[in-house]
């Protein structure tokens, strides 16, 4: 999995996930996301280039959300590609894209 990072407004780190987030590359993807997650308290995942995701991939995103939630760090998932939308909708997880996860209200844009 490719991840390209860029600094956005309000100190939000924008990480664009590319290609696939699946079982085949899960261990690698996990490591990279950990690094990204550790590097910013405000994180936005851009899923527009993510063409393939499976349940193992979804679990990684859920684990990331858990961690951000527990630490009170912001997480947004935005611009899901069509394949990602499809998978999320079949799993009943569409709401992931609406939520902005953080406990610190003042940081919410």
């Amino acid at each position: 999995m490719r991840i390209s990072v860029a600094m956005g407004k309000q100190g939000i780190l924008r990480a664009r996930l590319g290609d696939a987030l699946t079982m085949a590359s899960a261990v690698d993807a996990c490591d990279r996301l950990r690094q990204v997650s550790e590097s910013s308290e405000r994180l936005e995942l851009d899923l527009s280039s993510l063409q393939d995701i499976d349940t193992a991939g979804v679990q990684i995103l859920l684990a990331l959300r858990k961690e951000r939630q527990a630490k009170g760090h912001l997480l947004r998932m935005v611009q899901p590609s069509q394949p990602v939308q499809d998978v999320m909708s079949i799993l009943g997880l569409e709401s992931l894209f609406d939520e902005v996860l953080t406990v610190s209200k003042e940081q919410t844009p």
Partner: protein
Amino acid sequence: MMDLDSMRVAFVQEMRELLSEMEAALLDMERNGPDDERIHAVFRDAHTIKGSAGIFDLDHVVGFTHAMENALDQVRNGTLACDPDAIGLFIACCDHLQLLATGVEKRTGEGDLEPETRAKLVERLKNLSAGRKSETSALAPLEPINAKVEVLEGVSGHPVDSDAWHISLRPAPSMFSEGLDPVALLRYLTKLGTLAHVETIDDTVPMLSELKPDISHLGFEIALVTTEERNRITEAFEFLPKGSVLRLIPPHARIDAYIQLLEDLPESNARLGELLLACKALTEDELESALRMQGRSGDAREPLGQILIKEQIVPPPVVAAALDKQRKRMEQATQESRLVKVEAGKLDRLIDFVGELVIAAAAAKISARKEKARASEEAISNLSHLVESIRDSALGLRMAPVGEVFNRFPRLVRDLSRELGKTVSLEVSGAETELDKALIDKLADPLTHIVRNSLDHGIESREARIAAGKPPGGTLRFDAYHETGSIVIEVSDDGGGISRAKVLQRAIDRGLVPPNQELSSKEILDLIFEPGFSTAEQVTNLSGRGVGMDVVRKTIQGLRGEIDLVSEEGVGTTLQLRLPLTLAIIDGFLVGVKERSFVVPLDMVVECADFPTGGRADGEGRHIVALRGEALPLIHLRDLFGLDGPRPIRESIVVVEYGGHRAGLVVDRLLGEFQTVIKPLSHLFSGVRGIGGSTILGTGEVALILDVPALVQRMERLESSPTSQHLLQGASA
């Protein structure tokens, strides 16, 4: 809990049922070409047998069905052609499994019979697979069903509103590495119906820093709206890896089922409640009442399976297997529209009691009438109605579709026609016609014999048929229908018919009739039913088995039935069996002669008429009377049973009909309708024709039940020799 022996019996029974299903599907494909549904069905059946056999450590069955399953799987995914060769081989495999089932039942050599045959079949199965596309030769062994699957139906409480299946899936943590992707599974479910709601449960998913991405922590609560059968749904989950747990709750299940779900799932009640509400499986009120009910029952409701494992009574795999079995049972129950299997003996006892009840009710009625006790009479009249309903339903329990016996014939016809080198197609109609199960079981042998005869002697060879301008393939027809209190079963073929000349010649050769006797066409045909008769010019190993049509006729007569033969040379032959619907109880018409009572089966009574003899003796001599311009032969019961004494001023005629023939029974008194239980006559009286049985009247008096078919038949024969006075010898009451 069931002991192992009775489970074994259940297993053999289940195996036989599955095998006959399998055979039916295979035969159908042989006739009508491959069919995906049926291949799947055959595969599932083999798979189920394998699973159950595993429980009993029947390794030879497991190994064999495994080989079958591999080949079937290839057929299923299209890598192996579903051609007649393959189907023929699968049918042979079914036969072998039938044999193994018998072995298991009788415990001969651990049920391991004919290992050489099996080895050959396995070899052929392997060759079948290897002979085709090679990329499938390294076929991975099939996973047995390893997941724990429970269908929670609930036993008490009110049904819930939800019209969706609630599916609670907790896949094994290893699912990702086992190649299972719930997304794919859910996509498959959308083909079965509408995924009304899915909740992905991530409660136990750890933080990313602690996540091992190849271990699944997910669970799913799914609401599926579908009209599909339960087994179609569970099928979707067939390849869940070991350690997965699947719980299904059908639409409108009782609330109980959800209580059990709440208890079984690891999540907290509050969280589960939330999920169930989200899935719209329960309304808020229903959830509340479920939680209340659960609180009341406390821990006492621990699932039996868990108790067993905890107490180390049964090792977990056995319980899982048993649950698996239970699940299949339930699936089967849906398929068979919820059948309950009852031991035949229990039913017979019930029918016996109902019989006694009918007699007791009749006695009460008679005594109330005698005492002119109005209130009692009315009460008893109500009671009688109920008893009648009970009688009808009790008898209904014994009724089974005649198709049960017809089912065996497609296979027989297939095998026989191959052996004889003829092409014969079988047509069946009226298979749903019901009759007494006891009769059905006894019909198998005579019908088999009739089918053999038809195929062997009736239907001609292809060449002969073509020469006669007929279609090259013959047709055998089975037909069943109800007719005035009887069931009629017809077996007809479009073969060469029966040559009367040959029959007569054969009968003369065998000394059955003197050479110069004049016989009607029907009488000649009836010679076929004489002991030791065979018209085949060439005795084949098929019908030359020493069992003749005489045995068939005896069997049918033993069931109070009749057999009739119609045949036209060059066109075909029809055998007609006419049987009573049940052997146990009849609606009778009670008549009196002197102080004796007789019962005429009501369904054979056409009407009653006066017979004014005025007590004169000339009534005695009259054997025929004109009734509305038609001649009606008479049977004087008083003469028939040797009841002497003065005749009353007015006698009555009870007109009876059977098989298209009418006769008048002359009696002293008509006593009205009477429902009664047939008590069979003892063997001592088995030679007496004209009496079908006896019954005990409410007064304690014994009444004889007249065997109308026999009487009418006698009458017919007597038409040629009207001088005989006593139809029955030594049959005085």
